[in-house]
Every structure is written in structure tokens, then in C-alpha cells.
């Protein structure tokens, strides 16, 4: 089936099979592999995107459900070739190792800071507890969130 949706501000069309997730469509149909596929079962947050401004796991949304809706992926966060403040903070603090969790965490952090510009330590931990990272032990990710919050 053919779906039409807005991705990172651009109207896009894709031919998808009815059982395909939004994540698969983004990665394999629309040339946007930034959103990651660590579990495809809603357990890791690596596929986090904004669907009409709401943080979702793209692996749990059917591509067909996104018909007519607006999706923002990690590729769409920066503007005019400049990094988003959260992306910049992840780079500066060393919050990236293998980086497989990073797109999801960057999107989740941007969402957190949009809702709570100055989150407490506990709020940061709770907000990011759905995003698994196997490499960093999270310490530098928390540093990144604080740095981005300060910069905002």
C-alpha cells in the first residue's frame, strides 16, 4: 500500500507492506536509517521518534498508522546544517561510544527538555529509563542532558 506522511518537515510517500512498522519504513523505504533497530519490540528506545510531537517507539507503530501524520526523526533535529543543542551536548560530554543508542536518546532528551527545560537528576533518570545503553553506564549521558539543559 502507498502511504503519505510528513517526515522531518517534508511530505514523503512510501510503498509499504501492511505489516511493516514505521521504523522499517523510515529505515528501509525512506532512506532514513538514523532511527535504530536494537529490539523492534518496544524494549530499548533506540527507535524513538516524535509522532505529531509525541515521543514514540517507531517499531511499535505501523507504517500505515503514520499515514497523514508528522514524524520527526534524529535526522530532522538539527537545522541549517547545525547540530541541535542536545546533539552538541552528547558530542561534548563523551556520551557517545558505539552510538547505537544515541539517536533514540537524543530524540528522548530533546523531548524531555522541551517539556521540562530544567529537569532534576531524578527526572532525567526516569525520563531516559526506557532508552537502553550498553556502553556508557549512562553517566556521560546524564552530563549531556545537564549540559543541554544549561545551554537551552
Amino acid at each position, binding site marked *: 500500500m502507498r502511504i503519505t506522511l510528513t517526515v522531518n518537515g517534508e511530505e514523503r510517500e512510501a510503498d509499504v507492506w501492511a505489516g511493516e512498522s514505521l521504523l522499517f519504513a523510515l529505515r*528501509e523505504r525512506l532512506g532514513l*536509517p538514523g532511527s535504530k533497530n536494537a529490539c523492534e519490540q518496544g*524494549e530499548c528506545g533506540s527507535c524513538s521518534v516524535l509522532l505529531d510531537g509525541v515521543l514514540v517507539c517507531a517499531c511499535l507503530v505501523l507504517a500505515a498508522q503514520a499515514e497523514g501524520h508528522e514524524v520527526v526523526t534524529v*535526522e530532522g533535529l538539527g537545522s541549517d546544517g547545525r547540530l541541535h543543542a542536545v546533539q552538541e551536548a552528547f*558530542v561534548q560530554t563523551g556520551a557517545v561510544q558505539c552510538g547505537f543508542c544515541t539517536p533514540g536518546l537524543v530524540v528522548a532528551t530533546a523531548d524531555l527538555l522541551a517539556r521540562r527545560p530544567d529537569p532534576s537528576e531524578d527526572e532525567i533518570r526516569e525520563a531516559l*529509563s526506557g532508552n537502553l545503553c*550498553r556502553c556508557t553506564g*549512562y553517566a*556521560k549521558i546524564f552530563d549531556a542532558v545537564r549540559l543541554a539543559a544549561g545551554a537551552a
Partner: protein
Amino acid sequence: MRTVSAPARKLEHGRVGESVLRVDAIPKVTGEFAYSSDLFAAGMLWGHTLRSPHAHAEIESIDISEAVSMPGVHAVLTHEDVPGKKLYGLEFADQPVLAINRVRYFGEPVALVAAEHPEQARRAAEKIQVQYQPLEPVVDPERALEQEDLHPERPTEEAGYFNDPRSNVVRTIVIRHGDPDAEGEVSVSGVYELGIQDQAFLGPESGLAVPDGEGGVDVYVATQWLHVDRAQVAPCLDLRPEQVRIHLAGVGGAFGGREDLSMQIHGALLALHTGRPIKIVYTREESFVGHVHRHPARIWMEHRANHDGKLVNVRVRILLDGGAYASSTTAVTSNASSFAQGPYAVANALVETTSVYTNNPPCGAMRGFGAVQVCFAHEAQMDKLAAELALDPVDLRLRNAIAQGDILPNGQRITGSLPVAEVIRRCAALPVPEPEALPRDAIRLPGGAGNVTRGEGVKRGTGFAVGFKNICYSHGFDDYCAARVRLFADASGELGAEVHCAAAEVGQGVTNVILQVARTELELENITLAPHQTATVDSAGSASASRMTWMASGAVQTACRAAREELESRGGSLASGDEVDVERVYRHPQTWPLDPETGQVQGERAHVAFVCSAMKAVVEVDTELGLTRVVWIGTAQDIGRAVNPQAVYGQIEGGTAQGLGLALMEEIQTRDGLITNASFTDYLIPTALDMPPVDAVLVEEPDPDAPYGAKGVGEPPTVVATAAVVAALRDATGLELTRAPVRPDHLAGLTA
């Protein structure tokens, strides 16, 4: 013609020893970095692997006729379609590319499908009719020693190991040191057990295999050692090594789990068969069965000591379950044996370690590699001994700390840097945070958002652990790393350099290490690292054993110096268009194997160098519900020298998280050999709510043999963290807690 002299200009930044931002960080935060699962090629098909639902069965027949006629299907392959060697393996070729007549573990690859859509491939795989005759699985490693041999041809025999005639033995090591019967004034003993841990890297096994149209193939894959992949892949395809080019695709974490092959041969087989590029991406469930795990272990230890606290004799028996195929089990066996007594000087020791084949999930490399398991046991023993002697546990460790000049049970004298007493002192001196007042937010209590306590029944405890392990490959392995440096005059007439090194960037930051070394040696700004592949440079060895910093530094340093010499011999300048191109191989000082009968090293050293680490953990336990919260972790780690301090701290924090996971939650569960928790819902890894702050101190005592004195950092935090966290749980509860991971029912006193 313009000529350019080196150095073109004085380097401002980016040398060895400075915190340098990761060069791959920007593409990783923007989503542009191409991981092995992100690859795409025109005309590409999707590969899928049909796997065994049994832990042990005879295959009576395989019928692919229905599957091949399914829509979109281009190929269905079985072992009959493997043109070359049918078996492969990291150390011993004992594992079939696709099962032949028998399956030996749950999830073993049986057949392959290529189709236009991944769902078509999965559905076709369901239509492959495999007739199995289930056999009794060998699942208890102790009983395995008496049960039917799963590998009657005994692949590891004749490898120069101790000759152990019992069934299913992969390797037995016996180390006798001094008088193994020596008595002490006191003795403590215990039996310890560890479950199976999974690397649980986030990037699933995946890759793209592209036929070259001339019978060869290019494989783009996330791996830890490109050249050893090629050495295994080419013979199975019946191709010459140069016809198989392995390229490093973006790696989403490794931790040992990408040492063995996953999709490499399978993808290449399908690509060569269909003439089309093949993409394979494992699901998370498949990933849990698709790579080797950390060896589960049963360990008996007896520590004999005198009243002054000096160890007299350490006696150890270790049983490791290697699962269905050997992988790196023989090396894990020798590592567990090497570090069984911990970083302590002891005049007498007896260590007997046996690893076995079973029908459980295959086990191999995981961060810490045998040292994690024994550290859990020897540190529990040291605490027990301290209690028996009424000594302070830290003081007991200091009294026995091994130092330069001391001899290990394998006969090796410690010569390089190994500041055990220093890491103990520096860690012990770290101030522990005061207990937080009650009431407090539930998120800061055991059970967290579950909101199960307001502080009643919560007890606090502190634990301490010390551990050590080797750096680089040991026991006579020809361990080397190559690097190639090309100097050229760039378009603007400035001197630039391109470095080739096949050292796998798995997230640990070796790319920065390579560039920092090259900048330090060449004093140039314009230095790039060429893509990692087998075709343009010799082997770098594996990104494992905490060796990549040491080995890549050595190789790049040597190649850079050779390039400069060459440049100078040409008068110190290059005409534009000219270039210097040199490749050099670096080897660390030689090591020797152990005598198979006595376990004594047959030369100067068995290991080239060691790293040690001490860790202190503070926990709170809800003793009624058995729930935990790790409050704080402090650590002092011996690293030789930090090449990139920011990355070093990152390694320590991440390695600590993995050790904490094994202490509290991470275990592959099996029933009769079948994995029952192959998902992140059922196999838990630490989340942002589970990790405490980690206060890390770097102890920098440069190693005389290591390039720049830098030893390596990846493994020690994982080695000590499990032991330290469980020690804190014992302190909080007074329970023995001899098994990791510790479960809530253990802590609530419901089970032992």
C-alpha cells in the same frame, strides 16, 4: 614543482594524553553513521536463517521444496550448498556452517533463505520441513563429564593441552605451584556459581554481502577482527583469501560477542548463490541465540592462611560450561586459571580448571574473559578470610597484594607495572556518600518507581573488591598488529597522512587512539584514517583482551616513525604527487605456553602485562522484598597511561554497568538447553535508573613495555564490579550470596 617539508606546522591539539572528542561522534548523533544494519545496495535481497528449535537432535531430513517456490524467494540453502569446508571456528573448526545431520544447541543455524522482503524470507523459512529426532540434551556440566561425547572426534585434543580422558572435555588445566598441600593456621572455603551473561550489545548482528561478479565477495559486517573472519569465511566458500574482502561496517557494541562469526559465511553463501547483494539483520531474539555468551561457572575455593593474614595456599577447582561448540573456551579456561587466586602473592597453589561441551548455548568471549568469574569467587573468599581472622578486609588485601618481583602460580615473575596496593589504597580512600535521609522520593529507594517501601526494612551495605587480568593475547600466541602510513602533499601543498589500520572500532574509541598516535608521531594536522578492510592492510588482531590501545598504538607509532625516516631519506620533503607509503607490523614482547602437566610457564612469561582495579560499592537492600538499589560506586583503576582520559572514564563507567548487571539481573535462563528469556523484557540490563554515580580514579604508572606506557582499560571494571556489588549485598544482609546474579528471593532469604 612545489615541495613541502615536514612538519608542515606545529600541532596544537590531539596528541596522546589529551581528552579528544570522538571523531565519529557527530555522524553518530545526527544518525548518519552507517551501522552494519543500515546498509543498502541496489537489487539487494534479504537473508534469513532457519534455526534449530531443539538443544540436541538428529536431523532425519530437510525438505526445501515448498520453501523455494514461495513468492519472492530466490534461494534456500542447506549444508549441502556449502562449497568448501563445512566446519569453522575461532580456535577449532568444530561448528558446522549449517547443521549436518545433528543440531547441538537451541538456535543452531540449519538453513538459509534469500527473498525480496524480510517477511517473505521468514515465511519461507517456516515452510522448510526439517524432520528432527530429539535426543537427550547434555545440560549439566558435571554430568557431561560422564555422558556421551557430543564431539567424539575431540577437536581440542593434540593441541598441546593436558590430556583429560573424561567425556566432553574441551580443555583441562592444572597449575601446581610450591607445595599444593601446604597447611595454614586457618582455612575458609566455599562454592560459588555464576549464570550465563550475554553481551547484549545494542546493534543486532547484521551485514551486507555483495558478490563481485568474478566469483569473489565483499562482506560489510560489524566484527571485532576482520582478518580472522576472512580466515574462517574463505575456506568455507572454497575461495582464496583475497577473493573475500571483509569491510568493517559500523559496530553497535561488541564486548566479545562479535569475535565469532554470525552472518558472514551465511550472507556470502547467499550472495554467491543468487548473484545479488544480501542483507541479513538478526532480530533481538535471534541475537540472543546468535552469539556466544559468558561462560557460566561453578567454582570451589579454599584459602589457607596464617593468623597474620598472609595467604599460605589457595586451592581452586573451576568448571566452565562451554556449550555446544568450542569458540574461545580454551583461552577462557586458561584465563580463569591464571587469575584464580586474584592479585595476591601466594607461595603455594593448586588450580584445576575444566571446560566442557554441553548442549547449552555456546560460550566464548565476553569482557573480562574468565577473570570475572574467578574474581567473584576469590573476593568472596577474601572477605570470608578477613572475617575468620577478624581483620579489616581492605587491610587483608593490602597484606597480600602482589607486586613487582612476586611470582604468580604459573611461575611468571611480575616485572612490568602492576600497582595492586596502590589501587587498593586509592579506592579505599574514596569518601563514601552519607546515607540519604528519609523520607525520600521512591525513585531513590530499592524498588524505585514501584513505590514499594518508604524505607522500612531497608539496610545499607558496603563492599570492596580487587581484581586483575592480562592485557593482549597470552601463552605464546603470535599477537601482532599492522599499520600502514601514507604521506603525501595535499592539494594546497601541505603534507598530509592517511593511516590504515584494521583495528575494529567497536565503540571503545580506538579510532581516536590511532589518530592521536599519528598526530603525536607525525606532528601533522591533516591526518585521516582510511576505511577498515582486509584488502589494504594486514591484520590488527582482535579488538579484545583490552589489547587494541596497546597494539594499535604500537603499530601506528612504528609505521609513522618508518614513514618519517623514509621522508627524511628523501631529503625531508615531498614533491606534490609523490608519496611515502610504508606498512609495519608491531609485536608485543613474546609470551610462552604453560606446561600441560604442571601448568608452569615454559619461558619468561605467559602474559605480556597485567592491569588491576579496585572497586567499592554501596547498596541499599529492601530485605523484605529482596529489592536493591546501588547507591554509589567508587573505583581506582590501573591503566598505565590514559591516551584519551574522557574515553577512559567512559570505559570505566560502562564496564562497571556490565559487572553490576551480572551481580543483580543479567542471566540467560535455560530449560533443558532452551533459552527462555531471549528479549530485553526478560533479559534485563541496567537502565538509567539502575546505575549509580561512578567515582573513578585513574592510577597512571606507565608500563615499560607498552607504547606510551598505555596498557588498556576495557575489562577491569567489569571484572571487579560483580564482586564488589555482591559483597555490598552480603554486608547489608548478612547472607552468604554465593551465586550471581543475586535474585530477590536470595535477598529476601527465601532461597539460598
